[in-house]
């Protein structure tokens, strides 16, 4: 570690240098040793890249099928064609292409839901913890009411009223996902609020918003970040469930959950590839995000560093 907390630059003024990147090297080295986390990270990066560049990578149009090529099994099974590596679905659409485009939708929903609910939840939690009193009581009562209740049901009601579709799905999932962040942010703010950090900031006359944004938020960001990653995994599962039930992404668009939902009717006839592959992708993505989040938690918390179970 070669960074110094403070240095005198050429003008003779004291400038503080933040030790920003000193961790990057050691973390990178540890990552190479930890094979499981590395594998998870590589998998997620591959999935994200494939999703971002779906138009380039996908061999066929995901919405266009040739009906006489319907329900072709994967290439290694009898009757499969080398054109469609993972087979075709009930409308003769290429399964691999649909999986790539479906990943795009699933990841996008996961990302935006966490972006929206994470921002709202964190801000509400910060305010509740910082101001206390009535604001705290009101926000936490809301959190409690929603916490005691299966969010799935509220999400279904939401979608029923607004009509299914990607945008409404994001709204519905964000609506019942914000409580986790609020709870966590509030808890951590409470432990910082009465400490010397905030006291000093108050003493120099910083306004509350600035204290929250500049002084408290950076200190609680890393635990929150692990939560964001974990929540993306949970939202991917929730999106898959909603789409599977028919209340999420609507055809002819594809999402992993929707592909399973549509392919479900064909499993008794032997069409296993329609459900197995998207399910595996969901499971592996969620697993990878869980592993990464767990690793981040142990790496970022100085008390737990190096205690990672994997």
């Amino acid at each position: 570690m070669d960074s110094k907390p403070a240095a005198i630059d050429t003008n003779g003024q004291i400038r503080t240098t933040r030790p920003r990147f000193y961790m990057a090297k050691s973390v990178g080295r540890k990552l190479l040793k930890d094979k499981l986390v590395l594998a998870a990270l590589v998998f997620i990066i591959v999935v994200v890249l494939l999703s971002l560049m779906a138009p380039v990578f996908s061999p066929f149009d995901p919405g266009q099928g040739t009906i006489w090529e319907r329900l072709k099994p994967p290439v290694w099974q009898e009757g499969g064609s080398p054109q469609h590596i993972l087979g075709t679905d009930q409308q003769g659409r290429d399964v691999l292409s649909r999986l790539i485009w479906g990943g795009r939708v699933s990841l996008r929903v996961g990302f935006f839901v966490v972006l929206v609910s994470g921002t709202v939840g964190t801000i509400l939690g910060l305010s509740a913890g910082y101001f206390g009193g009535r604001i705290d009581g009101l926000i936490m009562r809301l959190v409690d009411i929603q916490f005691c209740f299966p969010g799935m049901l509220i999400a279904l009601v939401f979608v029923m009223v607004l009509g299914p579709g990607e945008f409404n799905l994001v709204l519905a999932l964000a609506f019942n996902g914000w409580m986790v962040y609020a709870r966590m942010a509030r808890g951590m703010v409470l432990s910082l609020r009465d400490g010397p950090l905030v006291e000093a900031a108050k003493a120099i006359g910083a306004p509350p918003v600035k204290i929250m944004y500049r002084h408290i938020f950076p200190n609680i960001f890393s635990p929150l970040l692990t939560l964001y990653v974990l929540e993306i995994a949970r939202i991917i599962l929730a999106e898959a469930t909603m789409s599977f039930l028919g209340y999420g992404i609507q055809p002819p668009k594809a999402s992993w959950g929707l592909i399973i939902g549509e392919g479900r009717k064909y499993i008794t006839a032997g069409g296993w590839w329609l459900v197995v592959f998207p399910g595996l992708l969901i499971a592996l993505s969620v697993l990878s995000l869980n592993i990464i989040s767990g690793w981040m938690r142990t790496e970022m918390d100085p008390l737990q560093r190096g205690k990672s179970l994997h």
Partner: protein
Amino acid sequence: MYRYIFFRLVNAIVVVCGVSLLVFILTRAIGNPVDVMLPIEASMAERVKLTQQLGLDKPLLTQLWDYFSRVVQGDFGMSWWQRQPALTVALERLPATFLLVGASFLIAFVFAIPLGVMAAIKPRSLLDKICSTGSLLGVCLPNFWLGLMLIIVFAVKLGWFYTSGYGTWRHLVLPAVTLSVLPLGRITQMVRSAMLDQLQQQYIITARSKGLAEWVVVIRHALKNAGVTIITISGWELGRMMAGYTVVIEVVFGWPGLGHLVVESINQQDFPLLQTLTFVIASIISLLNLAIDLTYPFFDPRIKYD
């Protein structure tokens, strides 16, 4: 004690009312039931007539007051789809859901306790690693997909169980096992960490130095003290199963329970039924939470409600 129960009951009522209010506002203020119930070609007069019939022309607050005053009398209105009292329709489905949730919870609980305890006794052993890997997998597998995989293997290929339906124990096995995977993993992890905490306490050393048999130390001392955490988490899981996870599992296996009814009522755009269902589910979960709280003094006599 009674004071505490009273306060918790008030709290439960607030939660149930809050959820009902939320659903009420969502369905009436944002959605329009009339558009859904009448065909598109219906005339304006028909629309107005139905709006009046349903009482939707009144101000929202009046509607809300009407609704809650009738709910207090036990009248949840008629299901538009079934043309029966919504509460009857909902309660008819309750036994099936209770059976499914009860069976899965039993599976989860019976396996989770010994697995978690054994994993905690020998941390970092092979069993412990299998348990934590298994739990992680259980959390990560989409449960509806797991159900479909079980159907492919055990119903389609092997023919041991049915793909869907309700009636015999052979109908019950697959949905119950599928539903139990997630809580099994989470309860096992919770038992493990709670037991690890307890086994490091001073009183365990005392118990051992008294010469008590190891199983007495583990079961009677450590496990009982870990009880509060385990029961809390198990109750949570039970609550989340009740309406969260059963919905999709019941759809996958064609199980005629509450969750299936939720999806059906949404398909039929049956607002009164959906409103009733959320009320029933919220009440069950609130009562469950209260029941869990009341078991605490058994595990930890220091907890007294007065």
